């Protein structure tokens, strides 16, 4: 009896520090990423209007406008569609993405002039999305499995210093990623992202993304009104503005089929 008690005490003694005291920075990073994922679960679907302002080194601007639809998929990555409304010559051009937790995403492009739906390669991770400073990789859904993590420290959040952020490094698991690492600032209570620093394959500081004007939708889903991406190597930047967020609009899997892209408006 005594032996068994001692054995139990030893097991407990061994287990407790693992949870409370000896959590490694890697484990803490992964735990926070998982908690962030869970905190936004249950949004079902949302739609929003996007506007991109592309700025070159001289400050010359050009704009893109689009509508976005996103469907939550519980056992895999989310599905999303974007359809451009500006500039006019690409109006109606739409991109459907089935994000996957593992392996390449599936993507279809709809070309309205020809009425043609074209399955396209999603191995284009590093290329610019419609000439902006966002790459395709930056715009895929942030699945936990796409990175390994390392927690660094706590500090006041960028953009909103009155809040406290967890700062962590994350390393893309995809070998075709354009980044060696990212440093992300996540607010402690709500897991809102406030900043991401991107380092290129040569580990050189490449871009910074900051998040602004958060609002809470459907009780618990925080979404930014503005995202600003600055490329430190080229001096170019892109602002992404989001308006008209609507959650739980009743979208279903049947809406996210390649054969329905031509019906988007």
């Amino acid at each position, binding site marked *: 009896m005594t032996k068994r008690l001692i054995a139990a005490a030893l097991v407990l003694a061994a287990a407790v520090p693992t949870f409370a005291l000896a959590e490694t920075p890697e484990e803490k990073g992964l735990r926070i990423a998982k908690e962030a994922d869970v905190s936004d679960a249950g949004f079902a679907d949302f739609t929003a209007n996007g506007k991109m302002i592309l700025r070159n080194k001289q400050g010359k601007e050009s704009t893109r406008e689009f509508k976005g639809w996103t469907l939550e998929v519980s056992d895999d990555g989310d599905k999303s569609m974007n359809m451009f409304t500006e500039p006019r010559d690409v109006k109606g051009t739409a991109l459907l993405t089935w994000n996957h937790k593992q392996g390449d995403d599936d993507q279809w492009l709809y070309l309205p002039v020809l*009425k043609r739906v074209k399955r396209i390669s999603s191995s*284009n991770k590093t290329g610019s999305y*419609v*000439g902006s400073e966002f790459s395709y990789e930056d715009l895929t859904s942030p699945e936990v499995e796409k990175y390994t993590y390392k927690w660094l420290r706590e500090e006041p959040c960028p953009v909103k210093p009155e809040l406290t952020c967890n700062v962590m490094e994350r390393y893309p698991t995809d070998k075709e990623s354009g980044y060696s690492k990212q440093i992300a600032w996540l607010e402690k209570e709500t897991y809102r992202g406030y900043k991401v620093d991107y380092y290129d394959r040569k580990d050189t500081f490449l871009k910074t993304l900051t998040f602004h004007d958060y609002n809470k939708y459907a009780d618990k889903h925080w979404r930014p009104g503005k995202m600003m991406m600055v490329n430190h190597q080229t001096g170019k930047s892109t602002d992404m503005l989001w308006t008209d967020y609507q959650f739980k609009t009743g979208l279903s899997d049947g809406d996210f089929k390649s*054969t329905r892209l031509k019906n988007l408006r």
Partner: protein
Amino acid sequence: MTRPSIHRTTLAAGALAATLAGTAVESRAQDTEVSGWAAVEVRVFTEPSRHPGQDPQRIQPSFMFQPELRADFFDGAGRLTIIPYLRVDQTDRERSHLDLREAYVQYLGDSWDVLAGLGKVFWGVTESRHLVDIINQTDVVDDVDLEEKLGQPMINANMHTEYGSFGLFVLPGFREATSPGWDGRLRATLPVETHKAQYESSAKDHHVDFAARWAHNLGDFDIGLAHFWGTSREPRYGLGLDDLGRPVLIPFYDIIHQSSVDLQATLGAWLLKFEGISRWGHRGDNHFLAAVAGFEYTFFDLFETGTDVGLLLEYLYDGRNSLAPPTANDDDIFFGSRIALNNTQDTEFLVGAIIDRHNQATAARFEADHRIGDSWKIEVEGQFFMNVPVGDNLKNVTQDDHVQVRLFRYF
């Protein structure tokens, strides 16, 4: 000689769509949008014309206009779309035409939709030839790339299920292929007299055609199976006389059955593509097979410049005999490259050539697109024919090498 530039069936279907929708729009319209574009086009031919009757002008300007009206009703589930298209060509009266590219009402259900009116549908995956794409007639006079299409009267219903999308098409009425007139370039020695067209069906161009299609995505594979029964979009040609007693080509449209398969495997940066058709019913060639197979490989973000460079290679086979509607793609190799700069102006280039494996007759082509500001776009295209021996189907157009510049203004 005057004749209606829009087909009667087309007009009827358009009017039906407009009437059906009109009531709904008046009472329920929530969102009406007018957009579109206007463009000027200049074609510059590198050689003088050769066929009798052709305009000797080597510089041939054209004007195009395509307004687009879209209205939503029933909370966005109901749609009205009206897209007329007008071309006014200085050189060729047959190139000047008015069409309704689209004029339909549509209702979108949860995982189904129905459409009635003049619609436009594209099937297929390959780049050098669109074999399985059969619903819409080609607007040949509009562009030699054969990618411009006439609006097709249709009632179309689609179901989108976990076993793929099923589509049914009832196509009441047929649109003849357009063709250059006496003045125009890019034609055979004799022009085609389109309004003397003959048909196998006694219903002529009122024959009701049917089509069905199943399209599905299975992991890395996208597959489409389809069957079409109705008036062949491609005519055979015979000799005849026009109203003035001049010799002309008379198009003859057979009733055909065509089964088709299109398949694409998307494996990393590789796109592997196949299109095949089996066609029955042409008089003189009751059955033949045709196929296009090839790949597209893309180097994304080449040398971290942001530029994508795609390489394309396709083999084209067509087993039809010389009595069937003519084709230049009986046993050919296509190779090409697509270059996208991914800049703010969406600058893109496409170069390619289709080469006959037996006589090396070559049709080469380039396209370049570039947006200017927010609402202008310039498009430059070139088409060149080389090594064409006597007897080849391309021989008629070997002197029609040209460069074409289009300037679009979007609104």
